């Protein structure tokens, strides 16, 4: 008698456990997932990649690997973002919370241009 009760409760616990496990998995929403970071490398007077496409909520991090300082400045008016001067190995991050196309350039070397597309 004890054994069957034991087995029954074990089975019940397993079913509940599995159920809970199943529900838990389905229950995680997009917002609860860890926001991702994408990198743009700044080197040789250019942005790599030149065009970066990311989902809404992504943080883009620019790292200056060049031996000359650069800046990351939005060309929109008003500017969506503007970094301070980045010397070698310095970084700048910006989180894109709204969809759209964000062209930018280096204000010291204006021939350097790039774009972030947020979808």
């Amino acid at each position, binding site marked *: 008698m004890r054994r069957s009760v034991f087995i029954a409760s074990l089975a019940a616990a397993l079913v509940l456990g599995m159920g809970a496990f199943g529900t838990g998995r389905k229950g995680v929403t997009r917002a609860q997932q860890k926001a991702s970071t994408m990198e743009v490398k700044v080197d*040789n*007077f250019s942005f790599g990649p030149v065009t970066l496409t990311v989902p809404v909520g992504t943080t883009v991090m620019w790292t200056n690997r060049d031996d000359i300082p650069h800046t990351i400045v939005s*060309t929109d008016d008003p500017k969506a973002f503007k970094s301070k001067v980045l010397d070698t190995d310095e970084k700048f991050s910006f989180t894109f919370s709204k969809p759209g196309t964000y062209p930018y350039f280096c*204000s*010291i070397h*204006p021939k350097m241009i790039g774009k972030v597309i947020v979808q």
Partner: protein
Amino acid sequence: MSDKKKDELLHDHNNDGVNRRGFLKCMAWAGTGAFCVMQGGVLKSYSLSQLSELNTAEATGDLSFVQISDSHMGFNKPANPDVAGTLKAAVDKINGLTTSPEFMLHTGDISHLSKPEEFDTVDQILKSAKPKDVFYVPGEHDVLNDDGKQFLERYGKGSKGAGWYSFDKKGTHFIGLVNVMNLKAGGLGTLGPEQLEWIEDDVEHLKSSTPIVVFAHIPLWSVYPEWGWGTDDSAQALAYLKKFGSVTVLNGHIHQTMQKVEGHVTFHTACSTAFPQPQPGKADSPGPMKVPADQLRSVLGITDVNYVQGQHALAVVDSSLA
């Protein structure tokens, strides 16, 4: 019969009275030294090793000054870990000239990151130069973070707008221009409508026989647009100077010497005192160019300019630090 020195090239531009378009490139970098001297419309170039053989009459005039450029104080990467040392060497070179220049022009990128201590260091080093007057125009590295406010406070007394101004020395009219502000994405250097208007007014009442010297950081002619080596509205500025018989344009920014003659206008860029940059298109990008340590000083340098009253053109002589 003029003295014929080894490697001397003579190009007579103005003898027939016709405005002939000439193009001359004088590149001094990577150990191959060359400099150009222009006097009275006659252009001569010599290899640097012959510099000591030049007789002083050829390099002496009624007015002399030196152009230095791109000291980039604060830069400390392998291309040159000691930019203060090479700037000091440039000052020693200036102090060793037979004819002591009366003043100096600094065509910008004084500092590397617009930091106060970088400007302070340059000021300190230049104090030991014999010529006590220095006239500055900013480079793009001098106006970071604060829209050029610090540059104006330090060097812009009496200037207009972002720091443009003019002055006269012994009958020669000098115009300092700023073409590193409000740079647009994908663009070149820019002067802007306010500055252009000022240039027009500034030269309006000058006699056409007045020699003009224009100095600005980014080249006022299209050296290599792909690398941003040019100014998008410089043609307008040069149009205002059309009436003058002698116009010399002195620029920096490209860290190598280049020269171009177009009618009455001579364009000249100076070496940096900090580090060289590659020739147009010869590298992926216009970044600091590393050369073997023992060659570094031969690709850095100063420009000595002499004016002889009555002659049309200024004699411009580049010399390396080696």
